């Protein structure tokens, strides 16, 4: 889980072109949207692509986004759960 969260931070920075943000600047439980990192609806769509591209997971319903993408940890937990389902 720790490695997954560390990887996710690097992937997020890259996918969203977050200039001058380093992985260590993003807290595991820091809210990604609104406060915290201040991401918006377009970023949410980018994160959906990130899940597909790096983790082979497709989200059909963008409305699930806010829960999955709440923080790096919730993303990691979601990915771990999905991978377990995939077997």
């Amino acid at each position, binding site marked *: 889980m720790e490695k997954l969260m560390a990887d996710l931070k690097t992937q997020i920075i890259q996918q969203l*072109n977050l*200039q001058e943000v380093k992985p260590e600047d993003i807290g595991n439980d820091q809210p990604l949207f609104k406060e915290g990192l*201040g991401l918006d609806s*377009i970023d949410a*769509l*980018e994160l959906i692509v990130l899940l597909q591209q790096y983790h082979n997971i497709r989200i059909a319903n963008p409305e699930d986004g806010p829960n999955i993408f709440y923080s790096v940890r919730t993303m990691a937990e979601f990915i771990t759960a999905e991978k377990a389902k995939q077997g």
Partner: protein
Amino acid sequence: MKAFIQGTGSISAQDSNVFPATIRAYEGNRLPVADPDYKQWIDIKQIRRMGRVIKMGVGASHISLQDAGLTQPDAIIMGTAYGCLADTGVFLNKLVTQREDMLTPTAFIQSTHNTVGGQIALMLGCHAYNNTFVHGAFSLENALQDGLLLLRENPSHQVLAGAVDEITDYSHSILSRFGLYKQAATGALLQSGTPGTMAGEGAAFFVLAGERNERSQAELTGVEMLYKPASPEETAAQLRSFLQRHGLQPADVDLLVTGRNGDAKGDAYYNTVENSLFAGRPVAAFKHFCGEYPTAAAFGMWMVVKALQAQQVAGEAMVKGRAPAQLKRVLIWNHQHTTHHSFILLSAC
């Protein structure tokens, strides 16, 4: 219809802070913009979602608004021939190589032509009229004309109008295949006498007001476009009647500034008309400073506004005769491929 220019801003291959005292020369077949630090105008959180052409447009528009002492324009109108090439290229690349899978929204959103104008409005929180023209070498001129039409309805307003175009590796590669460019040095480009020119890019914006005041830097006396004239003779006739509509003869123009770009055929066209209407008169050029691109006349216009204020033209800009001692009326005549001609008449005020 005329307007007063209250402020200008330019981002180009030249350093606006020192031009024309210091002129940058280039060798090769393109003149790239030396990107300024865009963070001085754009917040780091927003900059990440802005392609280069958007940053250029936002930067130049901010410089012109600041120059005019204006925070909220009454309209934002711009022109771009190519639009947002970098993101269009990124999206097309992914479309093809990823076979329409896992494409990214940011590249798509940034690819749309009105993104620059939209972003300027978004950053200013400006709800006013907002338009984008995308018509090749007439993009700037239509933006200016739209501004003049708005000011005709509301003379007390101030309109932000400008243009931007960029070069990307893809676009340069493709345009080169049309035989447009050649290897040259800007210092000798205009005397080269061979086919081809050097590519350029950049953004320039102007704040136009319906009413003159102490901040007015110059007057945009008139703007016209001429599409596919049959011959240089027709162009000369149209140029003459454009001047007549403003009560002027060619001899009343203190300086003619042309869009000469070093391409032999295109430059010969300028020569033909100059010899018929402006024989013996001083002529200047600007594309050896900024390169050739469809909205390059915006750089020319910026250069002339500065010259009118300083009442001085850089020696390096002159291609025929000597820089005139007095600048009251300057005519910019630019053409692209001899098919698209624009006449922009500027006056001291």
